[in-house]
């Protein structure tokens, strides 16, 4: 029983971190109608920025940077990356077929991985401990502090972004862009600025995800794989729903943890890895718009 409850707690916390990364997917889609498969690579870039301005700084720049300043620098670098991607890749593709935009994100996946490897090399490196490590014990259960902070952050962020996207003028403009680029353009909504905002938000949220995920752990290029784990979460929650992402993350995180503790010993460790993608295919078959997504006729 304790094992079951502990699996539930772990699953909840890990799931909310998946939710955080799924939010970075959703926020890009919700504001610009781009499914960005390269989100894992964006997260990797964010993590590498953090490393550069914290642990990498003494060797690279010759002096230590205070944590607050380095986080600000990381934020600036994320904004710059988002704007750069908008200007070079997605602005020329406005109004193109969805296929072209999807392929551009795949090209970006390959390219960012290559760029990361060329600039920072493929070696593994320690990631700074920005969040506290260790665990809080609550009766017989253990709560990982890092993941707990991440979970709270996820929920706050999801609510804040939801309010931004549904209650502010700028957020509603983004909704128009997510509906249709051409309709938005004809109504005088700037698709360029929408895509720029989407990418800035997406890179910043992904970097927050990287900090929660990696704080005090090891950073390698394989971190980017998390992007593929977050994709089923985003799809289950609904690609247009920021609030759906944490809930879907919760479901998939708990499912994965339960599969890990009860099914994996029988199935040679396959069950927990297969589960998110099984869920993804099931969602596409049964309810393509996800739990809270917009129901569109074109998808059927």
């Amino acid at each position: 029983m304790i094992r079951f409850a502990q699996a539930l707690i772990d699953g909840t916390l890990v799931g909310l971190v998946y939710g955080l990364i799924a939010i970075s997917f959703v926020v890009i889609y919700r504001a610009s109608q781009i499914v960005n498969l390269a989100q894992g690579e964006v997260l990797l870039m964010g993590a590498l920025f953090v490393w550069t301005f914290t642990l990498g700084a003494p060797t690279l720049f010759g002096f230590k940077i205070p944590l607050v300043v380095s986080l600000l620098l990381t934020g600036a670098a994320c904004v710059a990356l988002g704007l750069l991607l908008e200007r070079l890749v997605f602005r020329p593709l406005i109004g193109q077929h969805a296929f072209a935009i999807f392929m551009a994100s795949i090209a970006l996946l390959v390219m960012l991985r290559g760029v990361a490897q060329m600039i920072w090399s493929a070696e593994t490196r320690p990631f700074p401990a920005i969040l506290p490590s260790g665990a809080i014990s609550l009766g017989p259960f253990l709560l990982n502090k890092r993941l707990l902070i991440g979970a709270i952050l996820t929920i706050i962020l999801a609510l804040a972004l939801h309010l931004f996207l549904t209650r502010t003028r700028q957020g509603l403009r983004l909704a128009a862009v997510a509906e249709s680029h051409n309709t938005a353009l004809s109504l005088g909504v700037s698709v360029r600025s929408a895509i720029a905002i989407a990418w800035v938000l997406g890179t910043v949220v992904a970097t927050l995800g990287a900090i929660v995920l990696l704080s005090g752990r090891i950073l390698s290029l394989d971190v980017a794989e998390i992007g593929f784990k977050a994709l089923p979460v985003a799809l289950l929650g609904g690609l247009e729903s920021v609030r759906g992402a944490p809930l879907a993350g919760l479901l998939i995180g708990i499912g994965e943890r339960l599969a890990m503790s009860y099914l994996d010993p029988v199935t040679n460790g396959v069950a927990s890895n297969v589960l998110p993608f099984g869920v993804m295919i099931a969602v596409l078959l049964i309810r393509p718009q996800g739990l809270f997504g917009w129901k569109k006729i074109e998808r059927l």
Partner: protein
Amino acid sequence: MLPTGIHFKTYGSEAGLLKTTRARVWVALLVAGLALLPLVSNDYLHGIGTQMYITLIAVLGLHVTVGIAGQINIAQSAFVGVGAFAAAKFVEFGWPFWVVIPAAALTTGAVSILFALPAARVKGFYLALTTLAAQVLFPIVVFGLPPTWLGGLVGMPVEPLTVAGYAISSPMQLYYFTFAIALIMTLAAFNLHRSRFGRALKAVRDNDIAAEVMGIDVLRYKLAAFFAGSMFAGVAGACTAWFLQFVTAESFTLFSSVWYLGMLIVGGMATPIGAILGVVFITVVQEGLHEIASAFVRHGDASGTIFAATNVALGGCILLALIFEPRGLAHRWMVLKNTFQFWPFPPR
């Protein structure tokens, strides 16, 4: 469009793949040149040639699924892997090669249908996500299955290929074998365009509602598009198994799937010529980068940097093609050909 003065007396001659004597001569020269190439090249080039033919088969399959039928598939490499493992298993059973290749193709096609089934409910890039699931699940499942089935984490060794009692194992022999297979598959891809099946797929790609109104069973043809494209992948997989003589799930990554797609996009999706040009272009770029990098780094392990540089180059090529020439190199080639044919008049 053909220049003035070329007339056809029968339907057969107008429907032919090579309409004029000149075209037939050029293609015969190309085939003869490729067949005679081993006389002047070395084993290294044979290896690259073999790899290019195998890649071409896989990309032609992608051309069928993505180019003709308009269904995005980002799991072509996983499907090649399924073909390779199927072929390795069938070779273990002691089947001859002319049974192994079709059997591997059919197996791969059947597996692809599993992941194409959501086409009943979704379309566009949502469908692409299920193929992404196929790509991510492939190594997990292969590694997780009992090692006696597909070799688990280690992989499976493959007996060398024998054709009519002769072992095909030297690079030159493999070059000729894959050349012959690639020739057959290229012919199949060209012929697909002028069959009812191919035209139905194009109708589905251009407007699936209109296609449905014309009496085309859209779901069936979408599944068939995946099946046909994956059969090409299965053939490529069987060739890979014999070429590497060892199959492991690690050789069939998402990255090679993206490479296949990139080749198709750079070359041009709409024609098999695009697939050919894309494969040749990207392979030349890759080999060129390889040469440059090894010239710079004489000592030390530079493979990581080369891998990174080729990825950046490929990503850049795809983006440039998407932004500046979505019709790919094939379109440029047509323009060049037209200019040549119509000279001194301006091309069409």
